[in-house]
């Protein structure tokens, strides 16, 4: 009895929590005449997926999607590459200044975007990288690296050193040990970190908004954020864009939830 009651409470809470998402989902399938109608209804007889195809004509969402994919994938590859090198150094070597370097990365995680954006904007303009993929990828990589290093450092620490020592005795070099032993063992952790990196870049709005200016480089969050209620009243198409845009993160997260949360908890507990 008590269990049933608690389960009911949990379900009601889930509905309450998901209300904004469910309402957006409902809106994304209504024609505009139904969207702008009082009283509002959850469902209607004329529901269809039309707004999902219409939005690609109203705004260049296809280009935005491509841009988002290019930027997020490139940033993920770069952060994983440079992040695992740094995390390897932190977890397997003792060297002078180690604590200070760790501190630098920890603190740069807290850096407000607002305090670097103006010079960054000027710098990118000067070197011709303003409003380009490369510019945005470099910035996203830099912004994501500190946390990626922390996450990977945590995962690398959980790999027993004995296995690696055995490999070293067998004549492997350090780098071979990293490539052949640590990386495969840390694969679940690396996957979770890749997810974090991808989501971080995919969802990032502030830098993408200010460092791009044309449709050929704008990412989806910029497309959505810039036009919400400002220039357009096509709520159903915006809702469709919002739903489509949220699907990749939700799938990725569902796939790697367990490892990701484990890494996060380890990171926060450090």
């Amino acid at each position: 009895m008590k269990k049933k009651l608690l389960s009911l409470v949990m379900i009601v809470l889930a509905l309450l929590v998901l209300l904004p998402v469910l309402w957006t989902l409902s809106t994304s399938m209504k024609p505009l005449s139904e969207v702008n109608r009082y009283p509002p209804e959850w469902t209607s007889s004329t529901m269809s997926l039309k707004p999902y195809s219409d939005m690609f004509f109203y705004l260049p969402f296809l280009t935005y999607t491509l841009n988002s994919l290019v930027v997020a994938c490139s940033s993920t590859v770069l952060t994983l590459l440079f992040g695992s090198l740094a995390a390897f150094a932190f977890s397997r070597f003792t060297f002078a200044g180690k604590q200070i370097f760790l501190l630098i990365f920890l603190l740069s995680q807290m850096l407000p975007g607002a305090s670097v954006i103006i010079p960054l904007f000027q710098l990118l303009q000067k070197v011709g990288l303003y409003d380009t993929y490369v510019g945005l990828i470099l910035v996203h990589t830099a912004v994501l690296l500190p946390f990626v290093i922390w996450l990977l450092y945590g995962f690398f620490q959980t790999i027993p050193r004995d296995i690696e020592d055995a490999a070293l005795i067998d004549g492997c070099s350090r780098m071979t040990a990293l490539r052949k032993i640590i990386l495969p063992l840390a694969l679940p952790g690396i996957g979770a970190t890749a997810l974090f990196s991808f989501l971080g870049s995919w969802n990032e709005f502030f830098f993408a908004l200010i460092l791009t200016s044309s449709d050929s480089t704008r990412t989806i969050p910029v497309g959505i954020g810039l036009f919400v209620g400002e220039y357009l009243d096509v709520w159903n198409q915006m809702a469709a864009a919002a739903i489509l845009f949220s699907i990749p993160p939700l799938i990725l997260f569902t796939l790697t939830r367990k490892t990701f949360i484990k890494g996060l908890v380890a990171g926060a507990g450090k």
Partner: protein
Amino acid sequence: MKKFTPYLLLVPALLFTVFVLAYPLVQNLINSFSDVSMITGRSGWTGLQNYKHVFEDTLFWRSFRNTSVYAVVGTVMALVIGLSFALLLNLKLGKITTIMGALYTIPWIISPVVAGFAWKWLLNDRFGIVNYWLSSAGIVNLGTSWLGNPGTALMCVMLARIWQFYPFAMVIFLAGLQSIPQEQYEAAAVDGATMIRRFFHITLPNLKAVTSVLLVLGVIWSFNDFNMVFVMTRGGPMNSSMVLPVLVREFSFVNFDLGKGSALSVVVFALLTTLSFLYLKVISRGESS
């Protein structure tokens, strides 16, 4: 050669940190004492002039107050909700717990821009479902504009922010709850302690370290948060929901006063650095205990 290996491994990551974070930070400091223009760049020193402009601007003080409320109240509320949900999930009711745990995490996975959009639409004065329910129940008049009213705009944005942040707290709290040694509860049960007593004397003290980390992290992140306010209100109406990160953009890229924008961002940086050191203190204390 071997001695240098760790440094070599750090070089790429450090280069990124230097070029994209350290250099702009220094340049920003220089700009804040200079006369800067978007087109011609720096054209000379102006001393504390930019800072004077910032501190004399009533909008700065208003944003500062808004940001503090947004960060502190929002984080505390998110932690309370996150803890409640974690306690509920920790009852371990079987399969339903796993499913609900995943559903409760969704707001955190969704992009802030999408979250802002969804809330803005949900709270829409005429066609939003919330206003329809509230007016049908006779609580408010139809057409009450939550985001268009200076008295309620900030509160609405904060609500959306809480919605996005509580799952993070929930996940961390849940891990914290699961690491509390079961013997403590068993001993308390033998002593005949009530559920409420057990909560206050075992659960809460054990979560103290996690709570302080979450609190400081949450305040830092919310203090930095640009997205939710920008998407939902852009700081309006009549600047009633203006926060510092949005104001930096306003000064620099809307009014094109880069000097004033830089000075403001140095102020934001100083505030954040203070908070970050607080964070370091909190985690180092957690380590020693």
